């Protein structure tokens, strides 16, 4: 610890050395005086023989110093003093850098949380989404989600696979929870056996579903999300074993998933076992998301090959009912495209985020160029000071280091302010909650982001500091002591550096401008897309479901729906009411099926393209403000009479009957339905 003591007692030691030297000189002087010299001569001689007192002192002190560090600290102190004494320059520079670094740190934290961090599951690199495409199935091939899994596929994959530790399928939905406080509609996830095992996140309380819970008409069970458990049950642990009425059926709560747990990218309130009835399954029903955990060491390609191997087994094991050909799906050319779960979650946002990161990086470069320009101007003003320092013996290296330390200080201070800005920005972003940014809840400023910010600060400090430092700390500086007065004109060389910076800035700004312009155009184009409804600000949407378990009779459901609509319509200020299984642009959940036109002949064994459909109420399009090209809307009489009527889109009409047919141009109209089960 002696070095510590040394560090603290150093000032005393320095004083002692000075005193010792003073005594030395006096002793010598007195001796010389005693020998008969005049006092003045004696003093001079003593000094001459002694050498340069301050240099000796310096050398003596240097023995105790951690020289490099102390010089650096001195530079830091000096740099801070210079910044302090030029408040306007400092404020402008600091603000520029802070905004640049803040924006970069904020975007980086998003990129880091969304793209770089692994998913929040144990050994998440083993998790895959069982994605498949069916290029042979017209219509379906265009869907972003490809071909989902059918329950029969799930059983085949779960029982026959060689590549997975566990496989499961899941789907989201909604349900009504009653019996605990106010009735509430909750977000539901239905899982098969294997899903929780694949995700491998243990429950916070209670247990997972067991295989016994997946038996149809067996004991009905449910699990809760942490948030729902807190909200509805106040985090009461005794909730395990209690019953909740989910869609009017009592379900025993067996477990609560931990805080922050999500199904891939879905928030949920309640998890239910899907409990497929194995005996009733057919080949079709492609409505479930597949998830699996690869066995250790198994590659994606092997998993793909495994599924390819299992597809014929699937077609051999199940059918779509008597008289149908199970191998008809060979025409669909179902191809597995297993992909890492992370890619499934992140999706196409990845590209967007990298572009944003690159763009914001350019902005940072422009900010750096700006500050470099400021520094250039200021260093010019400091010519005299630098020349004096050089004349007093400061080496070129020392001056360059000093200037660099100063600009890095500026960078770091800017970075500190920037980190604050980034923190606020990220909070704002999360609060705003952009709908198509996955893993939103995971976005935060973590150690990586802070490290990135510090690195960026130092790097940008060096970047914008290096140009003026190298330009002005040259040997030239010593020569300009006399000439660097107020009247000196700016040399062409100095102009060149600044011109180059400006050219660089303009070039980068132009790139940004062009890309911003393109983005705005894309955005404009998106805005002009007809969403299928008009006057959005007068539209209010809400979600209601009437569970089968509560009202099993279809006719009563219809009556209840009709009554709800009438009651809503009776509210003052309500213009009209309609409902549908999905809102416009909401994505597809409900269904798709083949549509045959009555006046067309289809070749044997060929499946026409699958089409999406949804169920709508009378007056739905009128309420949404959707233009009806031809014909009319459904009526309650038709609904009660269970009359087979449909409305089709203009596109479908055109595709089926072409432009020549007069009816197709007035495309949306009631025609008789030929839905094939």
């Amino acid at each position, binding site marked *: 610890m002696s070095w510590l003591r040394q560090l603290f007692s150093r000032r005393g030691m320095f004083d002692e050395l000075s005193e010792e030297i003073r005594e030395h000189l006096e002793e010598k002087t007195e001796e010389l005086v005693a020998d008969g010299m005049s006092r003045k001569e004696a003093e001079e001689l003593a000094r001459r023989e002694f*050498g340069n007192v301050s240099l000796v002192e310096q050398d003596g002190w240097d023995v105790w110093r951690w020289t490099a560090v102390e010089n650096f600290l001195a530079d830091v102190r000096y740099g801070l003093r210079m910044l302090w004494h030029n408040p306007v320059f400092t404020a402008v520079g600091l603000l520029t850098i802070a905004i640049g670094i803040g924006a970069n740190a904020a975007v980086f934290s998003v990129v880091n949380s969304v793209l770089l961090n692994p998913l929040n599951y144990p050994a998440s690199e083993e998790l895959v989404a069982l994605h498949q495409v069916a290029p042979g199935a017209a219509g379906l091939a265009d869907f972003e989600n490809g071909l989902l899994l059918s329950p029969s596929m799930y059983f085949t994959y779960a029982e026959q696979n060689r590549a997975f530790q566990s496989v499961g399928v899941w789907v989201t939905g909604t349900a009504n929870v009653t019996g605990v406080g106010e009735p509430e509609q909750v977000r539901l996830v239905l899982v098969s056996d294997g899903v929780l095992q694949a995700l491998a996140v243990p429950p916070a309380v209670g247990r997972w579903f067991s295989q016994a819970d997946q038996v149809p008409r067996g004991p009905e069970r449910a699990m809760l999300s942490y948030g729902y458990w807190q909200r509805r049950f106040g985090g009461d642990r005794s909730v395990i074993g209690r019953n909740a009425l989910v869609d009017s059926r009592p379900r025993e709560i067996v477990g609560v998933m931990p805080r922050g747990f999500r199904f891939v990218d879905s928030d949920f309130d309640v998890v239910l076992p899907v409990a497929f009835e194995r005996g009733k399954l057919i080949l079709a029903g492609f409505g479930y998301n597949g998830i699996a955990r690869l066995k250790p060491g198994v590659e994606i390609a092997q998993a793909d090959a495994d599924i390819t191997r299992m597809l014929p087994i699937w077609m051999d094991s199940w059918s779509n009912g008597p008289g149908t050909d199970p191998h008809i799906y060979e025409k669909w050319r179902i191809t597995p495209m297993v992909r890492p779960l992370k890619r499934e979650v992140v999706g196409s946002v990845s590209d967007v985020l990298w572009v944003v990161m690159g763009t914001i990086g350019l902005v940072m470069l422009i900010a750096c160029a700006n500050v470099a320009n400021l520094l250039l101007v200021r260093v010019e003003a400091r010519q005299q000071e630098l020349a004096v320092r050089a004349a007093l013996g400061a080496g070129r290296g020392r001056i360059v280091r000093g200037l660099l330390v100063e600009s890095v200080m500026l960078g770091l201070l800017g970075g500190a302010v920037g980190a604050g800005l980034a923190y606020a920005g990220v909070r704002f972003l999360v609060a705003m909650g952009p709908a198509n940014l996955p893993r939103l809840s995971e976005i935060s400023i973590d150690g990586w982001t802070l490290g990135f910010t510090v690195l960026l600060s130092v790097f940008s400090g060096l970047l914008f500091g290096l140009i003026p430092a190298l330009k002005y700390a040259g040997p030239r500086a010593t020569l300009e002591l006399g000439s660097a007065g107020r009247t000196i004109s700016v040399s062409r060389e100095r102009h060149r550096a600044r011109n180059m910076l400006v050219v660089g800035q303009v070039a980068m700004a132009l790139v940004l401008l062009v890309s911003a312009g393109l983005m705005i155009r894309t955005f404009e184009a998106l805005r002009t897309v007809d969403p299928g409804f008009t006057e959005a600000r007068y539209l209010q949407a809400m979600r209601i479901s009437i569970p089968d378990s509560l009202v099993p009779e279809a006719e009563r459901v219809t009556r209840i729906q009709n009554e709800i609509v009438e009651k809503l319509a009776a509210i003052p200020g309500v213009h009209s009411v309609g409902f549908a299984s999905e809102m416009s642009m909401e994505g597809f959940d409900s269904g798709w099926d083949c549509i045959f036109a009555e006046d067309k002949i289809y070749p044997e064994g060929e499946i026409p393209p699958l089409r999406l459909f949804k169920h709508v109420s009378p007056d739905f399009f009128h309420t949404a403000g959707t233009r009806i090209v031809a014909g009319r809307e459904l009526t309650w009489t038709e609904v009660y009479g269970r009359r087979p009527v449909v409305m089709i889109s203009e596109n479908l009409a055109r595709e089926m009957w072409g432009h020549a047919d007069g009816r197709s141009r007035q495309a949306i109209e009631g025609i008789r339905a030929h839905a094939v089960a």
Partner: protein
Amino acid sequence: MKKEVQRDLFPGALEMMILRMLKRQPLHGYALVQQIKRNSNDLLQIEEGSLYPALQRLLKEELVKAEWGISATNRRVRIYRLTAAGAKHLEREVSSFERMLEGITRVLSPGEV
């Protein structure tokens, strides 16, 4: 203006001489210089100031200790004293110096080689 040709001492020489002087008796800075000058018969030109950084180095390595005291001429001075480590260091340095000197002398002595 031109000084007599004067060789710099090799690094560590001054320290070695200081330790040797202090082995005989504790001394303060000024007295040390006088002793070295006297003992070398003024063959060595030592800038008096250079003694002090050397003393600081020895202090730092704890080869000497310093204490404030009163000199023979009744001055407040800092008196340096050899430590045990300093004595050992001196021995090692002297023997290695002697070997080096012997080597150099042999190479330089006429007649051989």
